[in-house]
């Protein structure tokens, strides 16, 4: 198994307070990694570092063997796309315009016919064609999240980084979003890093999980080995029952420790 995206001993700190300590993980092409851990564990910081939005204080992120900081911003934008948690709404653009922004690293001053075709196809695929000319502000949270996913997919990158893409969504939209991500990962061999709070969804849609606690990797592997009743209790401070309902992993918190 060749490593396509690897995080190599990455540390990060604000002043003297360490946020990440020597985090390492390697992903092969088409792999979906679920990044889990309690609030403040360093998930978002790791996401920002993989995107190149923050620089690690030590360590590096390698994409196909190259340090991502050695790529130009435009070259990096052709390789790694970002789905944020939310989007500003002060000047609402339409859905089509928002999605078309994903073509920015591929185009000159204006979008080409191919750029428009890519966006059209994605909007149809994500069932957004009926909203295409509505302003983002008129959409529901779930629809907005799908637009941001469409924008990232329009970038046609081989790495996708999602920062808690489902935390503000109803269960239907949660499932839809993650299903699209996993289908795209299979179809196009896209490697995905998904920071996510919902343990059940994380276990279900990830090929492997990385469990962070206070900036340190405390578990890495398939969900059965990463999320045991012991690790969840130690990291989250909650006693849970873990079970399977029709092959779907379920985590039922019953008591704070």
């Amino acid at each position: 198994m060749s490593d396509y995206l690897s995080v190599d001993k990455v540390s990060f700190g604000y002043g003297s307070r360490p946020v990440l300590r020597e985090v390492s993980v390697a992903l092969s092409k088409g792999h979906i990694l679920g990044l889990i851990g309690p609030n403040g564990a360093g998930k978002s910081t790791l996401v920002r570092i993989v995107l190149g939005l923050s620089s690690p204080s030590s360590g590096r992120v390698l994409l196909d063997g190259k340090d991502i900081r050695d790529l130009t911003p435009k070259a990096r934008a052709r390789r790694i796309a970002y789905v944020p948690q939310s989007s500003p709404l002060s000047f609402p653009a339409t859905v089509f315009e928002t999605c078309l922004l994903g073509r920015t690293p591929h185009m000159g001053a204006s979008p080409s016919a191919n750029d428009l075709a890519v966006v059209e196809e994605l909007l149809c695929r994500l069932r957004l064609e009926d909203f295409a000319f509505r302003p983002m502000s008129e959409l529901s949270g779930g629809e907005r999240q799908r637009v941001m996913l469409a924008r990232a997919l329009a970038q046609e990158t081989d790495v996708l980084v999602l920062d808690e893409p489902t935390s503000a969504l109803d269960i239907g939209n949660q499932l839809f979003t993650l299903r699209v991500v996993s289908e795209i990962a299979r179809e196009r061999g896209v490697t995905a890093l998904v920071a996510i709070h919902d343990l059940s969804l994380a276990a279900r849609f990830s090929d492997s999980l990385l469990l962070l606690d206070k900036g340190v990797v405390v578990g890495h592997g398939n969900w059965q080995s990463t999320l045991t009743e012991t690790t969840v209790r130690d990291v989250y401070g909650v006693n849970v029952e873990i079970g399977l309902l029709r092959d779907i992993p379920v985590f039922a918190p019953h008591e704070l420790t």
Partner: protein
Amino acid sequence: MDIATTAGLARGHSSGIANRYRQAGYWRLAIILGSLLALVVVAGSVAIVGIAETGLTALLAIVVEKVSFGYIVADVDPQQARVLLHLRLPRVVMAIVAGGSLAFAGVLMQAITRNPLVSPYTIGVSSAAAFGASIAIMFGVGFSAAGLYFVPLTAFLFALGCAVLVFSMAWLRGMGAQTMVLTGIALMYLFSAMTAAVQFVATQEQLARVVHWTFGSLNGIGWDAVAVAGMALLVALPLAQSKAWQFNALTSAGDDVSRSLGINVALLRGLAVVLSVVVSAVVISFTGVIGFVGLIGPHVARLMIGSDHRYLIPFSAICGAMLLLLADTVGRMAFSPTVIPVGIVVAFVGVPLFLHLILSRRSEYFS
């Protein structure tokens, strides 16, 4: 919600939305060209109205003479020619340049701060220019080699100084939008207070001049001012236009996503600050403080043409130009022969228009 698989849509599946997007683009282009034509027509019409009688033929003859560099000589009554060439035309052209510049500066500032309430006024540039003009009027006149241009020059330097302060504060904090707005507002209050303080020691005559300056007017504008302000706008507009797509990303996707799209956000913000400050400071230095055009021009434009900056930047300038041109004409004609400063008229025309926009627009636009 049906969450069945989404795979299997063939490439090339067409729903016509790409075509619809393309057509919307043609429409927007048509709106821009149409409004440019309208601006020329309105400018010509208002140039021939006023106290002194002038006619359309005289205006056209003079324009043809000037455009052909005197090759075609205009046969016009010299009195009419003087009025048109040295009073009306510079005034009309300056209204267009000033309105265009202020709205252009407004749309850039709103874009980089993602704040619909920002204009050259909010970011402190106008107040700094007013303070500079006040102390020039109070202490400087007659002592300077710059002579006639002493007041606008001092105003311009103070506006630039204010912008440098805002810029460096923002730079220290990673070029964030919030810092820029907050620093600008703080400086606006500071410069207003300093202007008020200076007015305490002013003589009656100086006070009148300071007050007149802070109202903003196109009285006595000559071709020199038009040339300087026009050049600034002609340089800045294409530069901003070349970054229009990046402004789209910055306003509708935010800093992090813009950076993940490969855009150098700090550089873009820096460029936009420089362009908008220089362009608005040049205008304000000659005309005095004309508020509101920089705020309302972009809003009217956005309402009519949408938020794609490839169309929004030029169209905002056109809307601002039209607004200031009409306001100045109202100011000239309403209580003729008394001329009301355009800064006052703009507020009277603009505020009701703005309130109407707030009421008619979907609430989240201004929330």
